[in-house]
């Protein structure tokens, strides 16, 4: 079975020449299909940079990145968008729901990006599964933090992506909300046979994963 994510000698630096900051230093790692891993490490170590690169939202300075065997380094913006649409769901720490769209509309957005139309019912079913049946037509400003993050997760999962990238998904939630959120994410990942990469500072979350990747000063340790 091929790796869902494959990083080969990937480096990332910002700035130019003497002022350049090397964020990632020729890292190699892979995430297998259906594997759940957590990336841990201190602030500024390069955790988030890894999932930015994996999602094609950042361009590697050097090296090769493959998503489901497809090389994404060097792809054009439109091609990267297609890779994301077909393979990846992203969950952010700050939810980032679109403020003028309702919960159902926010979730449907992912389907529509993939040219799947009139599937609001699917979005409603998923939100129902996440316990949000009473919030279908509410705007993000009318939802609590926990509810917003559940909508955000539903948005990431609705397309049945092969890979889920989650950046501190519980960073803005209390512990009760945090636990239920992670249950939701783990259960769904398992059920849908999806790879999951979680960036976290929370050891309890990291320990629930199949594997822990620790990163320090831009290198995997």
């Amino acid at each position, binding site marked *: 079975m091929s790796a869902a994510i494959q990083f080969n000698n990937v480096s990332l630096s910002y700035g130019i020449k003497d002022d350049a900051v090397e964020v990632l230093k020729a890292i190699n790692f892979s995430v297998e299909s259906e594997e759940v891993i957590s990336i841990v490490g201190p602030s500024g170590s390069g955790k988030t940079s890894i999932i930015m690169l994996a999602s094609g*939202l950042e361009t590697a300075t050097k090296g090769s990145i493959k998503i489901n065997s497809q090389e994404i380094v060097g792809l054009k*913006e*439109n091609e990267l968008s297609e890779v*994301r649409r077909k393979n990846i769901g992203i969950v952010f720490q700050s939810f980032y729901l679109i403020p003028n769209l309702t919960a159902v509309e926010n979730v449907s957005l*992912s389907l529509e990006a993939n040219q799947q139309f009139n599937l609001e019912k699917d979005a409603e079913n998923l939100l129902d599964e996440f316990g949000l049946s009473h919030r279908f037509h509410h705007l993000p400003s009318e939802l609590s933090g926990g509810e917003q993050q559940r909508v955000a997760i539903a948005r990431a999962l609705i397309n049945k992506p092969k890979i889920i990238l989650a950046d501190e998904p519980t960073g803005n939630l209390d512990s009760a909300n945090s636990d239920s959120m992670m249950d939701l994410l783990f259960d769904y990942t398992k059920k849908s046979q999806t790879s999951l990469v979680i960036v976290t500072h929370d050891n309890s979350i990291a320990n629930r994963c199949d594997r822990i990747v620790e990163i320090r000063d831009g290198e995997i340790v």
Partner: protein
Amino acid sequence: MARLFNFNQFKLINKYALRDFSRSYKKLWVITSTLFVSLLLLSLTFSVKEALNSEIENNSKELLGGDFQVTSGIDPLPDEIIDQFKALGEVSSTIEFATMLSKEGESPVFTELRAVDNRYPLYGAIETRPQIASERIFVRSEKPSVLINESIQKLLKLNLGDDVVIMGQQFEVAGLVSSVPDLVESAVFGEFAIISMESYEKFGLNSGGSFLDHEYRIKFNNSNQVEEQEEFLRSIVAYDDSIETLLPGESGQSLSRVIDNFSNFLNLVSVSAMVIAGIGISNTLLSFVNQNNTSVAVKKSIGFSSSFIQTMYFYEILLILILTSVIAYLIGVFSPLLANELLPKTLGIDLKPTFSFLGFLNIFFIGLLVVLIFSIPSLYSISEIKAGALFRNTFNPVSLNFSLKNILLLIVLIVVLVAYFVFQTEQKFYTVLYFVAFFVTIFIFYGVSKLLILLMKNVYKFSNNSYRIAYRNIVAKKSLAPIMTISLGIGLTLLLTLSFVANNLKKEISDSIPSMAPDLFFVGIDRDIQSNLESFIKGVDPNVELEFSPMASASFISLNGIPIEEVVSESNRSAWVVEGDRRISWSEKPKPDNPIIEGEWWELGNENEMFISMDSRAAYDLGMKINDKITLNILGRDVTGVVKNFREVDYRDISINFAIIINKAFANKLPYEYVGTLKSELSSSDILAKVVEKFPNVSAIKIDRILSQVSDVLNKVFIAVTAISLIVIVIGLIVIVSAVLVQTTFRRYNNLIYKILGVDFPTILKAMTMEFAVIYGTLIFFALTVAVISSYLVVENTLQLSWQFDLGLTLWILVSTALVSFILILLANRSIFSPKVYPLIRNE
């Protein structure tokens, strides 16, 4: 755009656009309102122009009064020629000349008198009050009747049945002329009267002077083979070059030209309004993109491409454009009904609303070009939004995207826009010049903003918090100062330029001309009475300033043997000098106020050779050189003379001036009459009344009356121009607000941080005032410089007036614009003064 042709994608774009449109319409009000106002202005101009042109075209025979018109000037056509006319159809003859019309106890008025036969008009009708009055002038009675226009009635306080005197004969006022079918300028703007041909013959004029005009109109019996009949008529009168012929459609040409010129001006103002609106559109879109920064990033993270998101926003703008252009066009279609109310009734023009899909497409196409030009740099900024920022919680404002590809695209679109306007106007040069000046001004202000940032960076030594905040806002990376500078700068420059031109023109009419001009202008004075008239006037006022010049009628035939029509185009600025009958004069010496600027004055004597002195401006416009040979038709004889010199002629003082002067020795053989001017400390009305009583055939124009007529017309034009300028200014202010809106999100965020850090409201307010003052203070110099240069060029070169700077007006405009703009900025920014901390904590 290719994205729109994928049906599923189109459905999605349509769905998102409509949803976004319905939920964000408040944010799009700047685009909607500015687009609508500028499209409406354009639509009004196009609709009224189209309606006027179609009215002139549809009523061309009425406007001519016949199927064919022949004008023979001073002398009537021989009877045998008129008999040939009659063989083709009905013939109506009229005679027009200027004379004095007086009422006992009132100062006489200079009147354009038209003597008509009972067949006039062959098409249309003379509209009078009472309705039957037009027939009464043909009723034979001891006291003949006259029809007068409203202006004479008001000036002489006349009632129906009152007596008036024309050339020593008594007439009874039979009625008021509301309109005549053919357009008569004096009927609209001056004094006009109609008598019967029979009454005219009683004057027993041997010579009506050079202001006499014989006109013949023919209505064909056979409505087929019109062209052959027209050709035949032309061949009959071809023996005399000074005889002019006119066809239906040609009669309204001068009015058409006036309409074209005015509508061209309106079009340029409209397109300026639209370009300024374009800046607003650009600002608003950029603001919109920045406010939706997170949403755009989220969409990108989900897998939407930049081009999809750009197309979606562009589709939204397209929907607004379609909506606003349809409404603007429909309102514009009905604007001719409003124009009917504003146009002088005497013109007898009835404009009708006409819907044309092509007319709509015209408006829409211009709107589309402007929208494309100004939305491309804003919408392409979407590609600069990084979805990766969602991981970092750091969003930088994006600015206009001027990539090489975009710049090339913009150049092509701008060229298409300019070319589209240029090809629709006859004044191509001025249109191109206007566009060039406009776009250069935009670049000047962009440069000004960059210069300001550079200077600020070099003089940074602020210890005060407000100054520091203001400084940071201006010099920050991706500062929004350029957008503010361009919007404010263009608005202020346009306002200053229009005000300077209008002010100079008004000053010239109200102050300069009256102080220089004579009080009376005598026309068509028989040479036999000239010396008696001069003595009589000097007897009335010994201190009077009198000047008489001999004058004869001539028409321009050729330049260096080439027919003048082939040398000079109708659009030539000085074409008037060579068109139709031209009055020429002669003198032994050059006039002191007509300095020779090229060539030399001629030697005295030499009565067998004609020497010519030309108005230098006309000569240069017509491409003449010293020693060129000009052929003039004088009294039916072609005479060729040599151009000896060019004179600088200033017509503004309304003294006696001629474009063409010939040598006196040659001219002594010609029959001639005099024109003269009078300037006196006494009342010109009293002098004129005495003169007309003693010399009933003498005609004189009161200059103050002409000036007041010109002022009246100018005032109406000013009202129209000011109203149009106000629309442009309102759009400019909306644009300024849009520039402020661009900053709102980030200012609110910054102020929130300042608030958390303990910076108080007065400090933030002071910082905003400082920032505005610095930007406004910088652009004053450049706006003033551009406005002074452009208004100087218009006033001195186009209007041929002397330009003056008015400090009071300038200060008033600068201060009031600053106040209005700053208050608007404060109002638009009111939400940033007390930002709520909660949304920041919630990352909303």
